[in-house]
């Protein structure tokens, strides 16, 4: 019955656009970068993709990847979350302090951390939907509040993570860290949620046009709250991962790494539209890998951090300009 032959005319165009999906472009760019990087590093007598290099790229991608998965969902609804950086620090502390070195407390600590993170996400979502505060301001406000708490309650790393939990951060299979696998698994889950479930459809709908979504009977507020909670939980996971790497909680671990803006950059680099409604997790992971690969290449080349910043900024702008070009052409 699904007959409807008329689709024929549009098929080639669809196929073309599927081939040129930003996701595909991102991974193509990643491959090119790896090749170019290997050559550059090779010229200087190193090897980019040896065991250590792969390990490096993947380890570096993990924390940012976790946050960026959450950020993707938020951005898909046309919002953004600037509170993740402070939240990561907060969550690493909650986790590490609850565990306090006791392996028996791992599960309660993880649950508690994620619950707290979800709470923060809930506040973000409620402020945005019920108080009608622009997401930029709402999450910036939350970030300031968390920062205030961290500043007054902590003056350095605190808590202690038991060894058993540290395996999360260090265990690996060959050159592949287990945590990176977990991150990819989470990305897959997020991908399934966004592409296959009703909730995911509504995320795209809200991002496409909130008004239209509401008129169509979607509970837009709920969707927005949900993505903020999911994003905060993803940040919570990143916090826990970092705690397992660091052995304790660290208040500024998220801020120092600039995970707020960097996660947004990764998402956009991955081809997700900042305005929402288009894009996805697969691209984001590509974006994260590109950033991590760039870092690794620069480290191998011994480039100064200032130069890295310049390149990162340029890559971000150029990539997004290319997407915009492509979109213009296809239209």
């Amino acid at each position, binding site marked *: *019955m*699904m*007959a*409807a*032959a*008329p*689709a024929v005319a*549009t098929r080639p*165009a*669809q196929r073309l656009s599927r081939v040129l999906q930003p996701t595909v472009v991102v991974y193509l760019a990643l491959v090119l970068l790896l090749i170019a990087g290997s050559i550059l590093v090779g010229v200087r007598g190193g090897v980019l993709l040896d065991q250590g290099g792969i390990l490096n790229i993947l380890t570096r991608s993990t924390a940012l990847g976790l946050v960026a998965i959450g950020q993707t969902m938020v951005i898909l609804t046309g919002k953004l979350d600037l509170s993740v950086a402070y939240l990561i620090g907060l969550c690493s502390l909650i986790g590490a302090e609850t565990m306090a070195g006791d392996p028996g407390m791992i599960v309660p600590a993880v649950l508690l951390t994620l619950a707290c993170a979800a709470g923060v996400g809930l506040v973000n979502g409620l402020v945005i939907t019920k108080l009608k505060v622009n997401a930029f301001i709402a999450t910036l406000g939350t970030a300031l509040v968390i920062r205030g708490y961290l500043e007054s309650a902590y003056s350095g790393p605190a808590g202690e993570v038991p060894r058993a939990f540290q395996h999360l951060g260090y265990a690996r299979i060959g050159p592949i860290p287990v945590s990176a696998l977990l991150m990819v698994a989470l990305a897959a889950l997020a991908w399934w949620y966004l592409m*296959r*479930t*009703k909730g*995911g*459809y*509504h995320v*795209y*709908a809200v991002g*496409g*046009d909130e*008004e*239209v*979504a*509401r*008129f*169509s*009977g*979607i*509970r837009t507020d709920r969707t927005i709250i949900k993505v903020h909670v999911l994003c905060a939980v993803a940040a919570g996971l990143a916090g826990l991962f970092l705690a397992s790497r660091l052995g304790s909680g660290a208040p500024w671990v998220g801020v120092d790494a600039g995970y707020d803006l960097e996660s947004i950059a990764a998402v956009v680099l991955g081809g997700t539209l900042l305005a929402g*409604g*288009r894009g996805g997790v697969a691209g984001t992971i590509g974006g994260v890998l590109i950033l991590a690969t760039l870092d690794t290449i620069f480290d191998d080349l011994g480039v100064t951090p200032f130069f890295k910043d310049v390149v990162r900024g340029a890559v971000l702008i150029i990539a997004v300009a290319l997407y915009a070009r492509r979109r213009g052409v296809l*239209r």
Partner: protein
Amino acid sequence: MVVTGLTDEAPLVRMRGIGKQFLGNAVLRDVDLDLRPGEVHALVGENGAGKSTLMKILAGVHRPDAGSVELGGSEVAFGSPREAQAAGISIVHQEFNLLGDRTVAENVYLGREPVRRGQVDRRRMEADTAELLDGLGERGISPRTPVRRLAVAQRQVVEIVKALSTDARVLAMDEPTAALADHEVELLYGLVKRLRERGIAILYVSHRLREVFDLSQRITVLKDGELVTSKATAELTPDQLVRHMVGRPLDALFPDRAAEPETGAVRLAVRGGGNARLAGIDLELRAGEIVGLAGLQGAGRSAVARAICGVDPFTTGTLELDGRPVTIGSPRAAIRHGIAFVTEDRKGDGLALRQSVRDNALLVRRAAFGRARGLGALDLAALLRSVTLVARGPDQEVRYLSGGNQQKVVLAKWLAVEPHVLVVDEPTRGIDVGAKKAVYDLLRGLARGGVAILMISSELPELIGMSDRVLVMHEGRLAGELPAGPSEEAVMTLATGHATVEAA
């Protein structure tokens, strides 16, 4: 969910004493309305009369400040469109409510995606959409196409399919034909009849009186938010209806044509114009005449307008203004050459909705001419009066105006630059008879003052009534030219490509 047995005595929807205020202004006062199963109930009135508002109250978008809504005998109070939908009330909004980046099927089932084993059942969704589209006779739309790629008319079809897909008992349509060409309107007629036979109650808002008489069994007239009358269609004549709506009898709808249009100097001439959407466009517009541009939806009428006005310029051929060849590569260039362009999508292209009437009316002047405006002083009040705008004042934000009044603001901003050539694309879309007449008079007045006008309209009677000549398009080319007052058949023959007549 069958209602065939119900008689006239049992309305499915009973709205009583509905009142609604926006920002302290009463837009509805004590309005009653009954909807019976299997009945098309037309709701008419001038722009801003409150039709859309009443419909939105029924559909749960707004809550009434006063009065009650009963559905099937029990009182309901919908807090959201979702609740209304669940109760079987579905709405086709006046403005589009589609997501450009999602497919047709995803749009149709938006918010109600069928789920199978925790996942959205995409296949079923697409199959059902295809079936619904088939039922409408729309074979040109694939359920998997992103809506962004559809033309306006196709989007309207998707809107209707979306409303139908809910198995609604009550269907409210707010100007569903505003963007449709006549042959598509025919399809819609058939569709509405079939829905009626299924026992669905239909509330139908339209400014096209012909449709109202063709389709409805009952007509309710609103004026300034109050109920004027509610009568069986059979008891009303078009003249009476217009009198109810406007409050006075309306004499001849279309103003007299120009006495001798051929005598005007050629203002604008296109020779061999073409671009991605068009080929071999040859046309001349003379000072003082109104040239109609007819064609089916998608024939390229808007494309011609956009090309002349520099939005999607011609890539081949020449364009002459007052006998001098010019290149027009941007809207700015067009405007500075005295060409004005009233676009068909007023919300998307025409208005800065959150700005005041004043800022919108002055927009083109400021945008195209800046400081060194080679224009005379402007009497804003007179300008707004000339388009018979109804607003609280020049500081009112345009988004709070009714659709028709918004259209008048669009006209006003173009008139403010005193154009020599005026291209109007669907200038009366969504505006009431009274306002339409005002627009007609306005256009004719401009023509008399020496402006050359190219008018596009999907309402054939209007196009025929207004034009001094009619050009007809078919698939991106001019299929022929007809003199003043052609028959609808003549136009349609050319438009459907059944004949080509050499241009005179």
